[in-house]
């Protein structure tokens, strides 16, 4: 008799644990967002200012102006902690903007293809196939390399292939939902296609797309850091984790903190977003839609 309640409570505990598993990454991501929004208001940092007398100070050292550099300084005497904070804003900004652009473009194309089917679908699907033949990061490197570096060029470069997965998910959801009875019923009642799509079909794409967007966000943040690391990302006047990592790579033996601090910040963010994305996918995602 005692076995059954124990078994049941075990089940309940396991379910609770599963629910909570999304909590830690969500808190971590929340912290990043907080730092991205509030950090630059509290800490001032100018990437152009290079106090050379403070160069290569180790974490916790006191700078010539009397302040403390909690994560040390780089080869030009700039505070690494401030770079991590400002880099968080850049990463979050680029991540959110790119994902939004991808989401809008991808959902629009996916829904149109899935709803109208026929030749519209064929053309759009082929377009997606062609774009998918290029490795995304390679295409981004080409685009970012051709234009003068700026925030918008990076967003464009990362969006060019980013919308594809959204389009595919949206299309597959729409394809199946449009065959359901309530859609038929609405159609028989004379609901116009645009309203039909917006009111009766698209709400069903939200779950998988949100899960998808989370994972895409991690990829975008990582890709931006990669481009900046290679020197074809953001202009030198802005702060990016990738740039800071690149600035420190000559000093890995002597001043490891320059690369380590932004590298760690990047890793923790990407892993947290990935974990949260997996939790969301398990809850709302549709395995067959991908």
């Amino acid at each position: 008799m005692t076995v059954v309640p124990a078994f049941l409570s075990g089940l309940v505990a396991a379910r609770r644990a599963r629910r909570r598993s999304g909590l830690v990454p969500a808190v971590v991501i929340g912290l990043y967002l907080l730092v991205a929004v509030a950090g630059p208001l509290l800490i001032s940092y100018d990437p152009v200012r290079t106090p050379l007398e403070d160069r290569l100070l180790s974490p916790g050292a006191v700078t010539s102006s009397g302040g403390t550099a909690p994560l040390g300084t780089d080869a030009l005497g700039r505070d690494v902690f401030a770079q991590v904070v400002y880099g968080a804003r850049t990463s979050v900004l680029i991540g959110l903007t790119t994902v939004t652009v991808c989401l809008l473009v991808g959902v629009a194309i996916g829904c149109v293809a899935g709803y109208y089917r026929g030749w519209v679908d064929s053309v759009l699907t082929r377009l997606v196939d062609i774009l998918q033949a290029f490795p995304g990061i390679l295409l981004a490197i080409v685009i970012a390399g051709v234009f003068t570096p700026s925030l918008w060029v990076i967003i464009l470069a990362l969006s060019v292939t980013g919308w594809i997965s959204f389009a595919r998910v949206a299309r597959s959801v729409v394809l199946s939902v449009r065959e359901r009875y309530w859609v038929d019923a609405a159609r028989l009642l004379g609901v116009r296609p645009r309203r039909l799509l917006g009111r009766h079909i698209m709400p069903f794409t939200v779950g998988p797309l949100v899960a998808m967007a989370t994972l895409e966000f991690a990829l975008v943040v990582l890709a931006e850091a990669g481009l900046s690391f290679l020197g074809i990302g953001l202009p030198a006047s802005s702060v990016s984790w990738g740039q800071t990592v690149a600035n420190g790579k000559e000093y890995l033996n002597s001043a490891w903190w320059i690369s380590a601090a932004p590298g760690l910040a990047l890793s923790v963010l990407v892993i947290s977003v990935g974990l949260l994305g997996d939790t969301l996918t398990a809850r709302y995602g549709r395995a067959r839609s991908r």
Partner: protein
Amino acid sequence: MSITPCLRAAGLLTIALALSACSIGSGGGAGRNAAGQAIVASGTFVIDNIDPGSAQGGSAGKELAGQQIYGRLAKPDASGKLVPDLAEAWKPSADARSWDFTLRGGLKFSDGSPLTAEDVVASFDRLIQINGPYAANYKGVTAKAGSDTTVTFTSPAPDPALPGKLTTLFVLPSGVPADAASYFAKPVASGPFMVESFKPSAELKMVPNPNYWGGAPTVKSLTIRSIPDVAAKLAALRTGEVDVVWGVPDDQIPALRSDASLKVEAVPSNGNFTMWFNSGTPALKEAKVRRALWQAVDFGTIIKQLYPVTGQPADSPLAPTVFGYAPQTPIAYDPGAAKKALEEAGYPFDKPLRLQFGQAQFKPFLQAVVSSWAKIGVRADLLQKEQAVFIEDLLAMKWDVNFQLLGTAGYDAATNLGRLYPCAAKRTGYCNPDLDELLAKAGSATDQDERKGLYAQASRIIWDDAVGMFPMTSKVSYVWNENVSGFTLDALGYPDFSKATGSGN
């Protein structure tokens, strides 16, 4: 399936980490190349082109490659004194309008054909015809072969610096057309090495030239590899993939000195950090503005902090080892006065200056310069350009401030001041008839003391009018594996490998 994107993210992350991690070298496990007596070198200059006459591909890389592959009439030794190369002797006419060069007897190209005075003349004519950067050294000069072994160069005005200038004339066989990209995939050599394979901007592999007059080098091969990334370059040195590197950043030198298998030495170069202002830019037209911009940069601190080993504040457009060097009054750091002068001159503070440079190693220095300017409100965009684009834009004057580490070929002011600063050279946008006259006179004076005086006056105009900023004379730091020896530690970063040897370990 649901986990794939996360894995993808993790994969990308690994790549990003690996990209930075791969540059940590951990001491030599891999076999040292010198054991096979093949030397791999990696310097500062990217070799884009090995056609010595061509205007394309930057001069420094071409010079480095050229000195290995082609012979010259004369070459400078470590102290800057001219020593015989293909020519064994030379002498001027009484008025120094013409110079007779006598070639060594029995010279041969790498393909076995004889190297005669006609080939020297043809190489010279080709250089003039292509009109590359060095052609400006030879205004109106003509070459004529007297016999198989004598060449006479005749100049419209006396030109006592001609032998020094001719150190940039590399000898090719006659008959090489001006536009011969395919020929230079495997050119016939007249120097110690001949080309085995050449990948522009990446790698130049050479083998000894059996017909070299000084005897074929003893190494199996010489490879000059371009590794733009300093960390990767030093990692390659530590693992033994590369045997000799030069142009190592000062911050890396203490760590390299502590490695027992490496040797480190910094030699004074004849190169100055040269930051021309484009006087053709409306904002930079006035000397007052250019001087103020110079005054605004705290070069003393920058040099002390960034170049403690290889830097030394410059006091002339020329390095101290160059003939014609004359010290000038240093320009003191005074941001207050600079700001005031700029405001008085109506300098447009809202318009950023385009500061262009080619090599990544100079980025921190230039960032510090930009930082100094920012303190008084002058904005500058730092533009790092790929070497070929950099040269193209440099010649097309698509810049406001240009950074170069400028050496002086032949250790004579004629190839630097005389070539770059006359109005006709169109290199800096600066034009001053007085300076033109001085340089022309200095170029043709036969008395060495008189030339020295004239170049001192010319230096003074260039310095005081701030045609450019001349902040620093640099040393070249060489680091090499102890089992390689016999190459020269060249002051310009063009080491001579003809006598190099590598011993097994």
